């Protein structure tokens, strides 16, 4: 007989929390092939706990992307939705998934690993019905990646075959300077540098990064990575940039362009440190009329007027004691 109510943890129990946290990380980042029999048992049990008939079929796919297509498409077919409408069905329904291994810590609830700690270490005795549901979820989480439950079938996803993270703390981010940061058995995955998803060509063929391709990139985070890869000094030197103004807010650079207007950029260091303690440097394009670095930084903070229209903040309005 276990305990029905826990008033406090003993020192021995407290000492074992780290062990379960580490176990949770191991489960969440596991790259072994899925344990299909155990996952299928967990899925059928989960349906039974939810008073649903078991799925007629459990369909295995090799990546979340395959799941995102397979689930909504099968559902659309069952409902007789015309083929030309399937893309809309996928867009609207791909997110009806449960996180599998990634939800080992739970979402807003006590996750399976917390419940496991309480049952195994603290001898907590759950109501049999709740214990059954907890066992079902544990089996899913410890055996496979995302699942997409449907009344007729359930799509289950293989685990990733590779996950690469940086060493930042407390949030380690997807990161691989030599290939995909995460990849599933069907090859789907993506490239990332310190958590920023970037196009594959930046990693695979960095020699193709040019001043022009950097200028053409709209995503400021991706552009920052491209400049970092290209080299800050080279970016300014090759581009023929000249320093126009510098103050405590940053540096204002001007770079001429052939057959086009000059580009004005403000170089600034993010005030908020990254999880690894470093500070990111950004080059932000600003309108060509600004004269000082202060004005340039201020111009990147639009404000909303009382009538709802946007206007660019004036320098004297932007003088924070602390930036965040």
């Amino acid at each position: 007989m276990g305990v029905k109510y826990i008033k406090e943890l003993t020192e021995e129990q407290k000492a074992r929390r780290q062990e379960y946290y580490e176990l949770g990380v191991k489960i969440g980042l596991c790259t072994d092939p899925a344990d299909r029999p155990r996952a299928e048992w967990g899925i059928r049990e989960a349906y039974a706990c939810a008073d649903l008939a078991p799925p007629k079929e459990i369909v295995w796919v090799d990546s979340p992307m395959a799941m995102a297509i397979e689930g909504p498409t099968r559902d659309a077919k069952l409902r007789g939705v015309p083929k030309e409408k399937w893309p809309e069905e996928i867009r609207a329904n791909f997110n009806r998934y449960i996180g599998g291994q990634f939800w080992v810590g739970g979402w807003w609830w006590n996750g399976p690993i917390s419940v496991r700690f309480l049952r195994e270490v603290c001898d907590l005795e759950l109501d049999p019905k709740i214990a059954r549901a907890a066992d079902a979820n544990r089996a899913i989480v410890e055996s496979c990646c995302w699942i997409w439950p449907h009344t007729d079938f359930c799509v289950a996803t293989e685990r990733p075959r590779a996950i690469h993270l940086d060493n930042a703390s407390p949030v380690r981010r997807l990161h691989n300077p030599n290939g995909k940061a995460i990849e599933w058995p069907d090859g789907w995955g993506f490239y990332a540098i310190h958590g920023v998803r970037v196009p594959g060509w930046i990693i695979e063929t960095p020699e193709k990064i040019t001043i022009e391709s950097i200028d053409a990139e709209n995503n400021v985070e991706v552009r920052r990575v491209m400049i970092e890869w290209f080299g800050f000094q080279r970016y300014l030197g090759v581009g023929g940039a000249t320093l126009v103004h510098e103050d405590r807010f940053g540096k204002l650079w001007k770079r001429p362009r052939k057959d086009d207007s000059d580009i004005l950029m403000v170089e600034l260091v993010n005030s908020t440190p990254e999880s690894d303690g470093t500070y990111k440097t950004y080059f932000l394009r600003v309108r060509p009329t600004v004269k000082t670095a202060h004005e340039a930084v201020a111009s990147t903070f639009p404000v909303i007027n009382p009538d709802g229209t946007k206007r660019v903040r004036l320098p004297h309005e932007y003088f924070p004691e602390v930036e965040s």
Partner: protein
Amino acid sequence: MIYIDPERTKSFVVGVVGWQVGDMTRQQLDPKVLSAVHPLIHDGLKNAVISSVDDVVFEAVRAQFQTNQLFGRGR
């Protein structure tokens, strides 16, 4: 089989194996115990797995649909 739309099917399943288990377990714990377990195991794993991997994977899938790359046509 009674058809239940995918959102509700997901809600039924995750409602029982996630929310209900979490809620019923919480009721068997003194708040002191919850606050001793939650920060390290729950919040820790939220940082270590959900924020660092699951959220990014979700955004990658969503981005691919938003740009219609899968369907071979532009917006």
